[in-house]
């Protein structure tokens, strides 16, 4: 503690996490998801990597197998919510205004609009941003980070904090990989260097290529979760 020259001045030790409030709410969210047996994933990527298309297809293809819903965060507009609704799954839009990430409290509020007793999978589509959302726990089971072949092979090296927190990394738009000169080997090498334990899926959400492996992983995780 730094001594203060003026005796009326006092230095008070605080040592309190600035994100403590968020972390507490995330714990409450996680407990609620546990109680309702809902698997929750937090999906992160930069804008334009195909997050919405990826989720749209996931929900449509798994309809009938599981009951899914989406909470989607955007700075403005409900365009993504409208696109996701086409899959038939319930969608709640969170418009964050100027905030560049979702917080646990926003997710909690959005959850109130969903029928949690009839839900197996909750997908949280975070704001398109690879920096800020990394710091905010939302109460999810795991994080999925998406990158597309047009973004450059070194994306994981540029945004290590985000990729390090992801248990799943999806490389999207593989259908145009060749046209854009995507160096697949170097991309995979970078991914494994940053996130050695992550499961990696190379897909085209547009054509559907590679999506089956992702569905297999997702349903496996749900089964594992059910056993706990």
């Amino acid at each position, binding site marked *: *503690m*730094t001594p*203060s020259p*003026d005796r*009326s*001045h*006092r*230095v*008070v*030790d*605080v*040592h*309190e*996490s*600035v*994100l403590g*409030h968020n972390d507490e709410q995330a714990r409450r969210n996680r407990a609620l998801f546990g109680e309702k047996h809902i698997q929750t994933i937090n999906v992160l990527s930069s804008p334009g990597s195909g997050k919405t298309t990826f989720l749209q297809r996931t929900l449509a293809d798994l309809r009938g197998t599981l009951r899914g819903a989406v909470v989607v965060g955007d700075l403005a507009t409900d365009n993504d919510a409208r696109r996701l609704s086409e899959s038939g799954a319930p969608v709640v839009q969170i418009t964050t205004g100027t*905030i*560049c*990430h979702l917080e646990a409290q926003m997710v909690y509020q959005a959850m109130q609009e969903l029928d949690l007793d009839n839900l197996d999978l909750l997908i949280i589509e975070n704001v398109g941003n690879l*920096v*800020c959302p*990394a*710091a905010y726990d939302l109460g999810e089971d795991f994080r999925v980070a998406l990158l597309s072949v047009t973004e450059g092979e070194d994306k994981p*090296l540029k945004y*290590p*904090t985000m990729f*390090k927190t992801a248990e799943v990394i999806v490389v999207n738009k593989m259908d145009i990989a060749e046209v854009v000169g995507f160096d697949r080997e170097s991309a995979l090498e970078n991914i494994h*260097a*940053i*996130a*050695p*334990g992550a499961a990696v899926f190379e897909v085209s959400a547009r054509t559907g290529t590679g999506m089956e492996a992702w569905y297999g992983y997702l349903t496996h995780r749900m089964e594992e979760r059910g056993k706990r």
Partner: protein
Amino acid sequence: MHEVSLMESALEIAFRQAKEQEATRIHRLGMRVGSLSSVVPDALQFAFDALTPGTLAEGGCLEIETITAECVCEQCGVAFEPDSFIYACPSCGLPSANIQRGREIEVAFVEVS
């Protein structure tokens, strides 16, 4: 960047402390920021300057201590400061996912009167 919302939360903590202390001014706000937290100290300073006028902390100063990262190698148990974002162990080269230190974003102290 989310430094403005982080600073809002940090100031909430500081104001609450000041109230508990029955203080009327905050002269210094001390923060500890980990090198892996993605927080830019300059942006925190900017947020502090923008948010404090008209509050207890007006005219006060912000002190930021940067906490260097520390990882522990899962294979050989060595604690080390990663020199790149690969977090490779200096003795065996295995990347470590066991981060002991470096993600902190916290209010360390407040100086009030």
